[in-house]
Structures are given as structure tokens and as C-alpha cells.
């Protein structure tokens, strides 16, 4: 985009027209056939049409900021970037819908006027975004509304989060789900690009306790909203285990900057500890301590492995370390295969794995049964959900405390410049080892729960691809952030569970997304400002805000 092509006067009307078109398209028919939740009916928006309207409303808001009554907001919100992202998202959304219609009905001919209008609307919005120059804006995080209003905003946001999760879990059509998630990602990116997210960040920072409490309540309330659905809670459980492990990896990769490509081995070690010490008939260790002890042992075993694999970091770093950890992950998997009593000692039962692991039982509370709490059935997966929530809260507390401590700053220093850190008196080797051992122990603990939840362990669940998935969760979400990794983990675990019959193309998409992501937004969906700076080191304005933030944090 050359400077000459900027034409801000044209941008406003274009954006307005585009967003109105997008909203109107939601009221029109999208397809001749009643597919994807029946998008063929006019003036009765469902699924995709609703998403189009949501995007249209956001674009309209930005358009009004760009030219119109909300003009004074443009001090804080940059409509140009927001419109670009929203417009491109809407256009991609429309094109994907066209593909979906072609796929479902066997011909592009079945696409009705609505989807074409949405496409035009999206393109107009994007064009408006590119016609308008990017402006430097003030950080809206400082704008404070009355406290009660901000708390209502938080409640609404958190409620919206629960509703979205709920809604997404209900969707059965894979195309609808893909488009929904795409729309959500687009909206999130629009919010961050246009600086709107920064205000939300400011609000949550000012009322941190309220926000945490609200989130916690919603998270605890989630199983009660599922009406005893085992499947959805199972997905939620898998997401939580994955997220706990990814947070552990986030310490190693996100904070300390040590790339680990064999991280799944730590989860696996924990799972094998949990399995071999369980009451399963196939368990190979006679000692059956209480589960909490097993959990600690699992964490301990994993952290010892972490120590072993971390020790080469004294001499190896960067790409070489990645390969060392990759080799380690493969060694773990192969060893689990071989400890089957034939090629090695009998510990893991090789490729058969250890099956029939009984459910947990805390003081007579059997996790395998459905319990009725407050008149609502909490099925088996729900029980595990609560344990996993406890685990993940623990992990998050550990993570944030480490992050804001001397140790965390040491890690960041190592990540940025190892030699300088060493010269400043940071105990480089000790901290690296701590990152590996600490992260690994979190994964190990998650693994012990996983063994019971899955009722089986086998070496096939701990292949390299799983490590790649974990890494992707960290990278896609945003390295070094808690929220980002949780979102990354949720997307990466939730989508494949729901898209089971697109099974064949899942991994294909995954590979593609990784590549596209690294080119489009390498710092992840939710980026810590410091990370962002690393990937865009010519952005001086950003550099300044980072320095200011750091100084404030140090006070």
C-alpha cells in the first residue's frame, strides 16, 4: 500500500456501506438449499447469517468511529486497522461459506444473494480500512468508567464467554463450527488491532479480583449448564488437561525461551506413573498409594526427566536444544513400547498399554458415578472436570507467581540475551534447569489425572505430533501469556473433537494454520507486548510502551 492510495475521505462512506451490506446480508437468503442450519430463509437469520450480522455491527461501530458521530473515539481506537481485519475476516468468511455451500449441495449455483452481498460488504470494509491511514492512538486502557459500570461490563463479558463456549459446544455441523471459530478469531483480532481490547484489558486490570471471581464462578458453573451431557464435559476435560500441559510448556518456551519438541513425554511419564500405580489389573507396580501421593510422584518423576533433559541446556541452545528434546521425546515413546516384558523389563506392557484403570475415589466419592448436585446431574466427566479445574488453577497460580518473580524476570532475561543475563549475575544454568523441571512436573501431575480419566495409557498417545500440538497451542495463543495459551489449547483440542468426521483433513488444516499463523501473526492471538515487540522490532511506539510498562512493574 503506497501512501498515495490513502484516501480517508472515501474510507468513511465505504466502511458504512460495507457494514450495512454485511448486516443486511444476514437478513437475506444465503443458500437455495436448507443447509448449515437452514440459511435459505429470508428475514430469519440463523447461524452464519447471525455471525455476519455480528461482524457487520462491529464493522459499523468502527465505521462510525472513522466517520461519524463516534468520531471522538478515534483518539483511542484506530478504525483503520480494525476495519482491515474485520473486512478481511468477513470476506474470508463469505468465501469459506461459498466453499461450504458448494461442498454441501454440489454446486456454486446454490449460493443465494446473501452470501454474495456479504462478500461485497467484507471487501468494501477491507478496502475502507486500507484507504484510511493507520493512526497513532492513545492507550484506551486509562479510560475509567464508574466502577459499577465496569463491573457490569466484566460480568457481561464473562457471561458472553460462557454463552459462547456453550453455544460452540452445541454446534454439530462442522462447517458452521469452523465458520463460528473463524468469526470469533477475526473479532478478537479486530478488537486487539483497533485497540478496543486494550480498554477491556484496562477494565479487568482495575477490577482484577472481580474479574477473577467472575471467571471462577463461570468456570465452576459450566458443568451445571451441560444438562448432564457426558460428551461435552469430556471435551472440556481434555481441553483442561491439554491446557495444563501447555501452560507447563509455556514456562519453558514462553518464559525461558527454550524450545522443547518432546514435551508430551512429561505428560506421558505422569500418565504411566498414574497407570502403573493404579488398581488396574494390568498395573505393574504393587504399591498403591493414595492418589494425591501418586500425583506428587508423577510430578516428581516428570521433573526428574526434566532435569535430565534440561541438563544439556548448559551446552546446547536454540535449534540444537529443540532437536535434543525431540530425540528425547522419541526415546521416551520407543522406551514405553519396549518395556513390554519381551524387549525389556515388564513395566508398560508395550503397545498394549495399561487398560481398565479404575476411576478415582476420594474418601468414598466415586468419580465413576453420576452425582446429583442441586438437582442437576454431574456425570463422570464432570467429576474429573472439577479436579482438573483445581489442578489448572494451581498451575496458573504457579505460573503467574513465577512470571512476576525474580525467577520469571531471570527467565525473560535469558530468553532475550543469555550472555547479557549471565553477565548481570543471573544464574543461567540453574534457572534453565528449573524451567524444565518445573514445567515438566506440572505436565506430570496432569498426566496422572489423564491416566484415570482416559482409563488407559498406551505409547501411541505420546507421539511427536502431540508435542507439536502443545507447541502450537502455546504459539497460536500467545507465548508467555496465560489467557492466550488457554485459548490456544481450547481451540486446538475443541475443534478436532467436534470435527471428528472431517478427521482426514484435520491435520492437514493444522499444518496449514501453523504456517499461515507464523506469517500473519507470529506473536499469537493474545500477545504479551514484549513478545510483540520481538516480532516487530521496528515499531518504536510499541517499544516505548513496553519500556514504560516494565518500569511501572518494577516499582
Amino acid at each position, binding site marked *: 500500500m503506497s501512501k498515495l492510495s490513502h484516501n480517508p475521505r472515501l474510507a468513511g462512506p465505504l466502511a458504512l456501506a460495507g457494514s450495512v451490506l454485511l448486516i443486511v446480508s444476514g437478513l437475506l437468503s444465503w443458500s437455495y438449499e436448507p443447509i448449515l442450519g437452514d440459511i435459505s430463509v429470508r428475514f430469519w437469520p440463523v447461524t452464519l447469517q447471525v455471525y455476519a450480522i455480528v461482524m457487520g455491527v462491529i464493522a459499523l461501530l468502527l465505521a462510525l468511529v472513522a466517520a461519524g458521530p463516534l468520531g471522538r473515539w478515534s483518539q483511542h481506537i484506530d478504525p483503520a486497522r480494525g476495519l482491515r481485519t474485520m473486512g478481511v475476516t468477513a470476506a474470508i468468511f463469505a468465501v469459506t461459506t461459498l466453499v461450504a455451500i458448494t*461442498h454441501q449441495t454440489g454446486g456454486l449455483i446454490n449460493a443465494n444473494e446473501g452470501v454474495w452481498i456479504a462478500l461485497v460488504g467484507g471487501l468494501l470494509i477491507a478496502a475502507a480500512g486500507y484507504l484510511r491511514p493507520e493512526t497513532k492512538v492513545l492507550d484506551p486502557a486509562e479510560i475509567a468508567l464508574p466502577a459499577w459500570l465496569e463491573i457490569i461490563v466484566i460480568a457481561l463479558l464473562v457471561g458472553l464467554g460462557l454463552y459462547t463456549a456453550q453455544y460452540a459446544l452445541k454446534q454439530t455441523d462442522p462447517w458452521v463450527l469452523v465458520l463460528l471459530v473463524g468469526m470469533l478469531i477475526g473479532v478478537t483480532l479486530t478488537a486487539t488491532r483497533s485497540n478496543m481490547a486494550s480498554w477491556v484489558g484496562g477494565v479487568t486490570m482495575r477490577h482484577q479480583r472481580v474479574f477473577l471471581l467472575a471467571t471462577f464462578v463461570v468456570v465452576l458453573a459450566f458443568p451445571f449448564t451441560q444438562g448432564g451431557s457426558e460428551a461435552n464435559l469430556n471435551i472440556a476435560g481434555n481441553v483442561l488437561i491439554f491446557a495444563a500441559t501447555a501452560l507447563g510448556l509455556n514456562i519453558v518456551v514462553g518464559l525461558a525461551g527454550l524450545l522443547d519438541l518432546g514435551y508430551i513425554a512429561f505428560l506421558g511419564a505422569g500418565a504411566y506413573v498414574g497407570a502403573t500405580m493404579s488398581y488396574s489389573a494390568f498395573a505393574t507396580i504393587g504399591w498403591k498409594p493414595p492418589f494425591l501421593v501418586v500425583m506428587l510422584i508423577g510430578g516428581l518423576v516428570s521433573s526428574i526427566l526434566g532435569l535430565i533433559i534440561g541438563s544439556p541446556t548448559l551446552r546446547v541452545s536454540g535449534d540444537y536444544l*529443540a532437536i535434543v528434546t525431540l530425540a528425547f521425546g522419541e526415546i521416551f515413546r520407543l522406551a514405553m513400547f519396549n518395556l513390554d516384558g519381551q*524387549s525389556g523389563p515388564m513395566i508398560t506392557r508395550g503397545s498394549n498399554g495399561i487398560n481398565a484403570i479404575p476411576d478415582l475415589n476420594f474418601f468414598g466419592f466415586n468419580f465413576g458415578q453420576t452425582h446429583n448436585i442441586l438437582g442437576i446431574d454431574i456425570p463422570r466427566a464432570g467429576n474429573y472436570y472439577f479436579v482438573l479445574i483445581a489442578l489448572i488453577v494451581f498451575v496458573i497460580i504457579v505460573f503467574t507467581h513465577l512470571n512476576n518473580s525474580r525467577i520469571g524476570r531471570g527467565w525473560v532475561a535469558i530468553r532475550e540475551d543469555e550472555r547479557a543475563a549471565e553477565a548481570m549475575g543471573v544464574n543461567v544454568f540453574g534457572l534453565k534447569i528449573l524451567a524444565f523441571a518445573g514445567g515438566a512436573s506440572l505436565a506430570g501431575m496432569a498426566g496422572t489425572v489423564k491416566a484415570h480419566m482416559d482409563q488407559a495409557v498406551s505409547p501411541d498417545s505420546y507421539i*511427536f505430533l502431540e508435542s*507439536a500440538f502443545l507447541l502450537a497451542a502455546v504459539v497460536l495463543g500467545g507465548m508467555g501469556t496465560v489467557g492466550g495459551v488457554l485459548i490456544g489449547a481450547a481451540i486446538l483440542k475443541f475443534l478436532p473433537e467436534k470435527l471428528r468426521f472431517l478427521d482426514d483433513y484435520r491435520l*492437514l488444516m493444522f499444518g496449514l494454520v501453523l504456517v499461515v499463523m*507464523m506469517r500473519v501473526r507470529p506473536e499469537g492471538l493474545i500477545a504479551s507486548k514484549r513478545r510483540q515487540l520481538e516480532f516487530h522490532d521496528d515499531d518504536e511506539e510499541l517499544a516505548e510502551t513496553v519500556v514504560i510498562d516494565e518500569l511501572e512493574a518494577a516499582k
Partner: protein
Amino acid sequence: MELVAQQIVNGLTIGSLYALIAVGYTVVYGIIQLINFAHGEIFMIGAFGALSTSLILFPGQTALWTLPLILIGAVAAAVAVAVVMERIAYRPLRNAPRLAPLITAIGISVFLQELVRVGYNDPTLFISDANPFDFPSAKQKVVFPRVDGISGESFDLGGIILQRPAIFTVACLAISAIWLWYYINRTRSGRAMQAVSQDPDTARLMGINVDRIIVTAFAIGAALAAVAGVAYGLQTTNINFKMGFIYGLKAFTAAVLGGIGNIQGAVVGGLVLGILESIAIQYFPGGSPWKDIWAFSILILVLVFRPQGIMGAKVVDRA
């Protein structure tokens, strides 16, 4: 004694494969310090390129004259994929933090594997079922075409069994190594490549087209990997979409063992790793199931204690 000799022969065979693939890692690393994690997949693409050539041009034909054609097909497929990969996935990230290209490489690796797995007999993926040449599904092992004279009976040299494909593999390595040596040391672009690897900025100032040299490096690596893919197919008589991962990792081990960035080192490293592995199968505790564990342990030990490898490449700071 015969047993040792037999294991060394086996080791040289498998080692030649490692060496052919390892060259690709080393050439690229030597120039842009990038571990091309997806290189193992290029090896796999080469094998499938050969299979496709055979299926398109002369299905069922096993005469010796098909060999050069399937080799050309393999090399063409692998080089095309490698060049496109460099262009869209690596070049835009050349100045990004080091994590970025590595993650892209993982993405490409998964993508290529899956593309072959689901797309081999259905190139348009889920749009329509197009399969003009009756390609088999690549979800399981696929039978690799035979070539008369190379897939035939093995020789027996006084108790030592010499497979014909093994001879072919070693010959491929020998020819490739000689050609590579000639190319690097005796041709203009080979010398330009040396210059870029020593100092890309100065090389650029001297009028060398650095981008083209980098693409050439990717292409050379891909061509040799494709040859390895054909040799692998002839040896094991079948190929699969997963074969690139473990061979890629082993070949990387070989490249590191020989000193990454050092081309002779890659060849020596590959052969040494192959022989070590064969001997491990015979004499190390655990035998065959544990051989990969030994190989990866060697990788870790070398990276930790002698990151410059046995041949000692230029010492890189990343180690």
C-alpha cells in the same frame, strides 16, 4: 567375523540413505543456519514422485530403462516441493526470530505428510473424487515399483549377503558425492555457494544473488533426498507417508554427527551412524527394538559433548 562384515554391509546400505538425506540438512544449514525440519518429508515426496511417474507413464513396466525416468520424476517432484516451500514458508521469515521458521517447518512437515496421506489418490481433496491414473490410497503402505536388475536376487559373497538395491544405494551415494564435490569446488555457482555460506552480506556485495543460491541449496538437498527416496523404495519394496519423519531425524543425527554445515561430514556421519546402528542391533543390549533409542542417544550425546561433530564444521554459535 562374517557376522561383523554382514552388519557393516547392512550399515553401509542404511548409512548411505542417511548420508544422502543428511546432505540436504547440511547444505541448507551451512548457508542460512536453518534446520529444515521438513526435509524428511522431501525424501518421502521423492519416493512418491517416483511411484507416480511409474504409474502415469508405464504402469506395471519393470524394465531397467524405467529407472532413469522414475529417478527424474522423483527429483522433479522433490525439487518442486522444496523450492515452493522455501519461497512461501522460509524466505518471508528469514529475519524473524529463530523460533518462527522452526514452527513453520513443523507445520509444513505435518501438511506434506497429510497431503500425501489423504490427497494421493484424490488430489482435489474433498471437492470431487478425481483420480485419473488410479493412484492407490496412501493411507497404508504403498507398493513401490520394481526395476529389473535392481530389485532382483541378492548376491552371496562367501556368506555375506549383498542385496542388489543396497549396491544401487551405495552407488547413488558415491555418484552423488562425487558430483557434489565437483559442483561445490569446480563450478561458479558452487563457489558462490561457498562464499554465501562464509559471509552472506559480503557475498551479496560481490554481486552474488544470495536468494538464488539459497534456492539452489534447497534444490540440491531435495534432489539427493529424492534419490534416497527411490533407493529406499527399491530396498524395502514399499513406501508410506510417515517414512520421512524417522529417516529425517536419523539423517539430521548423521548431519550433526559429521558436523552440520560440512558436506563431507554429512556423508561420513551418515555412514558411521548406519554402521553404529547395525552393530547396535547385533551387539547392544535389547537388539533391534532399541536401535532407534541408541541412535537418538548418540544424537543427544554428540550435540552435548561435541556439537561441532566428528569432522568439525565451522563452530556455530547456536550450539
